[in-house]
């Protein structure tokens, strides 16, 4: 299958890659970029475990093709912490209030 060239910014870093048009954004992030923070839960857009920010809007990356993210600014859970490495307010809130158990879906 013909591959498409995409360029996008992920967690502040420019990324260029060749992807098949049918490649889902979550597969691109996890398998090509090894950003395994976002997970595949239901594969159908219901559970939200795969949620990432795309141009400041939350999207279910299991329902988004990688080519749709061409030119976009993507933020995954790996890019949420403060620059000094400490947890962001949202992450700290989850920790303080015991907002997670196994944490599989928490990154979404």
């Amino acid at each position, binding site marked *: 299958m013909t591959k498409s060239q995409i360029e996008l910014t992920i967690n502040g870093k420019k990324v260029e890659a060749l992807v098949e048009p049918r*490649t889902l954004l979550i597969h691109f992030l996890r398998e090509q970029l090894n950003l*395994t923070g*976002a*997970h595949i839960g239901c*594969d*159908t857009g219901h559970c939200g475990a795969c949620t990432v920010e795309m141009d400041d809007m939350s999207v279910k990356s299991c329902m988004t093709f990688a080519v749709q993210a061409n030119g976009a600014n993507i933020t995954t859970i790996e890019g949420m912490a403060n620059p000094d490495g400490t947890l962001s307010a949202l992450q700290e809130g989850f*920790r303080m209030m015991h907002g997670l158990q*196994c944490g599989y879906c928490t990154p979404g």
Partner: protein
Amino acid sequence: MGCKRKRVEDVRFTQGKGSYVDDLKLPGMLFGDFVRSPTPMRASRASTRAAPRPCRASIAVLTAEDLKPLNLHGCRRWLVTCRWSWPTARCSSRTRKWPSSFAEDRYIAADAIRTGRGRIRGAARHRRSVQVDGSRRTGPARGHSGKMEGAHGPRKHHNHIFTWEIGDKEATDAVFANADVTIKEMLLSPHPSVTAGNLPVRGILGQGQG
């Protein structure tokens, strides 16, 4: 005692650094894909017009017959989150072959599997390798391949997932209308005919059944 304790592991979990089975990558690990009936609660009768064979870069195409020597052909579930079965003569009087495929790439694994009546997806060379009959089951279901005894039948009511059920809708709408800031979540659906929860083959996002 009596005070909140912060869990040490939450620092990793909240940053997406937890390690789960889904994150494992081992040498030689393959992706698998499985034929499933495109129509829920219907007879899952599969027939092969030609013997399934590996297609482009796929490692293997297996049927339940191949797993008989390992006594794995009757496993109803291998994965908790992936409901599928290996209907065989033991499980279903109708089904004999129910292929699965394995490849190094998830999409290639999916390529090797085709479903649907006359609407088989993917490469032309495998267009007629597998056909799943969607005819409605008649009589009581037996075995593991269809409706189990005591299971509910086809849903006759709306599932109410996206409808308003609780509370005062008008009052809530007014609050949102008068709010200074509202946040909306954008759900991107690449194709209008793709329906969430009804993807016929796990791993393929393509033309819906519509």
